[in-house]
């Protein structure tokens, strides 16, 4: 469904390439994980796919449709964003989710927009706190509201930038489970950055390892080898099998 072809991006003409020939494919319902060090181009790639930055070359397609040329509001109806630092001003949960409908209504929410918001609040079990101010909620709940807002855009792709960066273990699990359920049940593709390699392995279907603006490795769980991790992160790891689960141990000196 999403296909990124030979995408390149630089901030200034003749400036250095920040993204260099990125190829990436993702189907509906699939969870893609982008892995790479800070500054490797993850966020820039996200900004390009979101339509915030305009690529310098290459193509982004949704089911064959040229995404780059779409008007901004049309883009927002296809791709939604769950940022790492979640701010809502001082809006209520209900209004925050309604924000996701701005790409549809523009000036004034219609009955249909309210209906979508109520459905999503019900689906995500957020009705109880619908009137509460988002600022009063815990980190995990806030993340859930951010996902609900993204859902209100009725997107085909959701982009998560480090969704668990500010969460404790319990909330981490909950948020990732929620996201996976949505992907599977609605056929929404998810592209996410995650720092924790074990979490990434458990959560993702496809993995893209990015280094210096290039995708170096792409594929399934078998991509996680000590050699790949050494190349991408310059870190030594060991993979141990416990039952049928592989667990990555970091900080191993050899």
């Amino acid at each position, binding site marked *: 469904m999403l296909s990124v072809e030979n995408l390149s991006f630089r901030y200034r003409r003749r400036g250095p390439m920040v993204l260099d020939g990125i190829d990436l494919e993702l189907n509906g319902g699939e969870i893609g994980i982008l892995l790479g060090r800070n500054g490797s181009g993850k966020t820039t790639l996200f900004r390009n796919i979101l339509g915030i930055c305009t690529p310098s070359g290459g193509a982004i397609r949704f089911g064959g449709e040229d995404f780059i040329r779409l008007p901004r509001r049309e883009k927002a109806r296809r791709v939604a*964003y769950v940022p790492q630092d979640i*701010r809502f001003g001082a809006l209520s949960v209900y209004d925050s989710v309604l924000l996701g409908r*701005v790409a549809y209504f523009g000036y004034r929410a219609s009955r249909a927009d*309210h209906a979508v918001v109520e459905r999503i609040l019900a689906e995500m079990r957020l009705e109880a706190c619908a009137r509460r101010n988002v600022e009063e909620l815990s980190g995990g709940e806030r993340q859930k509201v951010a996902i609900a807002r993204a859902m209100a855009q009725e997107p085909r792709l959701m982009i998560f930038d480090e969704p668990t960066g500010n969460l404790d273990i319990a909330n981490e699990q909950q948020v990732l489970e929620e996201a996976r359920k949505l992907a599977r049940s609605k056929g929404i593709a998810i592209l996410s950055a995650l720092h924790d390699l074990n979490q990434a392995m458990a959560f993702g279907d496809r993995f893209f390892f990015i280094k210096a603006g290039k995708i170096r490795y792409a594929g399934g769980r078998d991509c996680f080898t000590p050699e790949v991790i050494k190349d991408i992160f310059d870190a030594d790891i060991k993979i141990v099998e416990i039952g049928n689960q592989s667990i990555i141990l970091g900080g191993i000196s050899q």
Partner: protein
Amino acid sequence: MDGYARKNLRRKRAVMLSLGLLTALLCVASLFIGSSHMSVADGVAALLKRSTAANNRIIWNIRVPRILAAMIAGAGLSVSGLIMQTVMNNAMASPSTLGVSNAAVFGANVSIIAFAGGFLSTGNNLKNYAVGANPYATGVMAFAFSMLSILLILGLCRVRAFSPNVVVLAGIAVGAVWTAATTLLQFYATDVGISAAVIWNFGDLGRATYRTDWIMLAVVTFGIAVFSLLAWRYNALLSGEAAAAAMGVNVELLRFVSLLLASMITAVCVSFLGVIGFVGIICPHVTKRLLGQDHRVALPVSALCGSLLLLAADDLSRSLGNGSALPVGAITSLLGAPFFVAVIFSGRENRPC
């Protein structure tokens, strides 16, 4: 309309209603406050044009246009401040962030010092400064220079990205140029010129006439109407620039239109009335504390807050002045500065957690 939103809206309506009532009450009361010691009975008679000619004139030619000016300019400055703070993502942004006021002061100073208040008059007597050959010359010059300043800064920012920091810094730089130019101008001015120029700098609602009121009303109404249409986009912007863009908001265009309109509102008010400080900072902050930042509510509420504050400050200035009205700009700033300090030190956003 759904159940959740309805309950929430009820409280907001209550606040809006009470602010509206308060403004209306103060507006009526202001009719009977002034330096002429007119009794309330005389005032009511004059409102019906049944009192003495002098009283009729005081009510209809002095107090009514003044009250209208306070309400219109108060609302305009306050809403401009709110929008500036939102689009710059900066609690300290104000209607004059683009150097509008400094430019207006320079324009007015040129008109007063170089042209003695009007283009035809060259005399050095105070009467010329007060009246001028053309009563609009000073206002027009102030407006022309503030527009020039706005366009200069917006043009500068168009070259680089429209990031809030660039805009704020450009505003500071250009504002400093106008202030320096004003200083130079005043250095070469005569004593009378300087005093006339300084008096212009004090905001004074007494300069308002029906004609200036209508012009201000047109600009402020237009601005508030556009801002209200864009309320959801401002709400989206509260989640951050990238998030807003991902929600389909054209952030750069929104910022450009908002800065232009907010600065124009400010330019018109300042040009006709002189510099009225801090309304554009106090009122948006009070509004946000009262009802949060949802722009569907914050826009009308901050407009009402602005009207209320400027009306109250003007009433204060007229009753404390002992015969003549104190400059209202000084009163709003006197109220504003301590409040500003309080905001800085109580802000939740300044604590590390």
